[in-house]
């Protein structure tokens, strides 16, 4: 039945084209769906998506404590060596040696925001921040030390 198949092909084609056109018309009629942000104008009322990845930061609590154990998982996970854990050994109260970070060096100029370090971290010590205005005049300012000076590991984080 060549003719029937021929007409059915035309019908199917028309229906599938109409489906596409309905989708574009849907967006045409709904200006609220527009996702463009007029960036320099709305700088104070930015509305970034939840999972926007700006840079790697290490959150500290009010006692200047972080959750990093210095396990180097992030350093191993990083595909281009943006993270470097410089660790030291501390003597605990029981007289044992325990690994701890001295510095967590983060090279923003190398980072591709791939999120692998955050996924690798077993103790949720680092996360992605929503900041994105990173331009500086001197390249060396892009090398950041994530742990604040004088900070130490939080109680109970192993």
């Amino acid at each position: 039945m060549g003719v029937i198949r021929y007409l059915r092909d035309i019908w199917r084609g028309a229906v599938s084209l109409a489906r596409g056109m309905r989708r574009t018309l849907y967006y045409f009629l709904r200006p609220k769906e527009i996702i463009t942000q007029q960036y320099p104008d709305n700088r104070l009322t930015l509305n970034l998506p939840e999972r926007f990845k700006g840079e790697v930061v290490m959150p500290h609590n009010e006692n200047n404590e972080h959750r990093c154990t210095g396990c180097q998982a992030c350093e191993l996970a990083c595909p281009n060596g943006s993270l470097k854990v410089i660790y030291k050994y501390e003597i605990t109260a029981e007289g044992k040696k325990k690994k701890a970070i001295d510095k967590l060096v983060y090279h923003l100029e190398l980072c591709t925001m791939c999120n692998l370090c955050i996924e690798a971290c077993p103790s949720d010590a680092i996360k992605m921040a929503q900041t994105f205005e990173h331009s500086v005049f001197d390249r060396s300012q892009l090398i950041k030390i994530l742990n604040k000076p004088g900070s130490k590991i939080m109680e109970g984080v192993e």
Partner: protein
Amino acid sequence: MWSFQQAAQQIHEWLSERMSAGWALALEMVLAGLMAIGLFAMLGLILVLMERKVSARMQVRLGPNRVGPKGMLQTAADTLKLLLKEGLTPDGADKWLFHAAPIMAIVVSMLLLAPIAFAMDFQLWDVNIGVLYVSAMSSLMVISILMAGWASNSKYSLLGAMRSGAQIVSYELSAGLSVLTVVTLTGSLQISEIIRSQADGWWIFKGHVPVWIAFVIFIIAITAETNRAPFDLAEAESELTAGFHTEYSGIKFALFFLAEYINVFVLCGIGATLFLGGPMPFHIGSWEGLNRIMDWIPSSVWFFGKTFLLIFVIMWFRWTFPRLRIDQLLNLEWKYLLPLGMVNVLLAALIAIKGWHF
């Protein structure tokens, strides 16, 4: 009530009182030419802005919004920029053809404007073969594209031009056949006659099934004839940089750009005239109140409203569908649109003979 037809009549009388008939005619021709050029410039600005705004909305963007209120002056600024740019002629180009091609393009668009009725009884040239004239002139568009492609001495341009040739030669047929459907029902090729035949209802309502099919085929065919996406193989920026106008810059590029939009406008105007009644208002049978209100809206508003509706549909195509390959393009024409169009003309002839239309 004020109308284009009355204004033209008054100007004609005013001129006839003051000078001989020959001079009056000459002056009227100059006036008409100036108005055509003015319309060209306005349409260029408006349609490009409309295209950008429509595409932005369909792609969930904002579109131009910096120059002037809501970006209204963006195209004016762009035009100014294009006028100031250097017009480059490539080495090894066929100089004469290279310079003639954009002029040819714009002249063809201007010629197309002649038989269009912009309002009731307001036409430059009411020739008795108006529809035939339009289809003849619109197939001349390809000549300027072939000239540009050949003269540029560039492989991108030549490829684009050759594709455009194959495309327009094929789609001309189904455009002609779908126009023929309405001509069969009307029994005339004259634009004013076709408009008058729709006083008691547009052909899209009166002619039912064959006219619906013809309308769809016509819209597809003019999208292809004006080289717009999804049939923009002649330009195909992702394959051929810019196709036939790759080597053009500045004002010559602007002329090609303008000609494309004018062609869209003119062919949509023809579509509106043939299928949607042109300047005829929308009437529903015996609803006196509604018909009175519809009559009160000027006929020029009706014409431009319908034309811009069709232009919107064509833009809607462009920002929805991906580009066809050349074999798919020719398949669509020769295996689907042309047989359908032929059967459709026979159906329309049957309906016209039997008087089954309303």
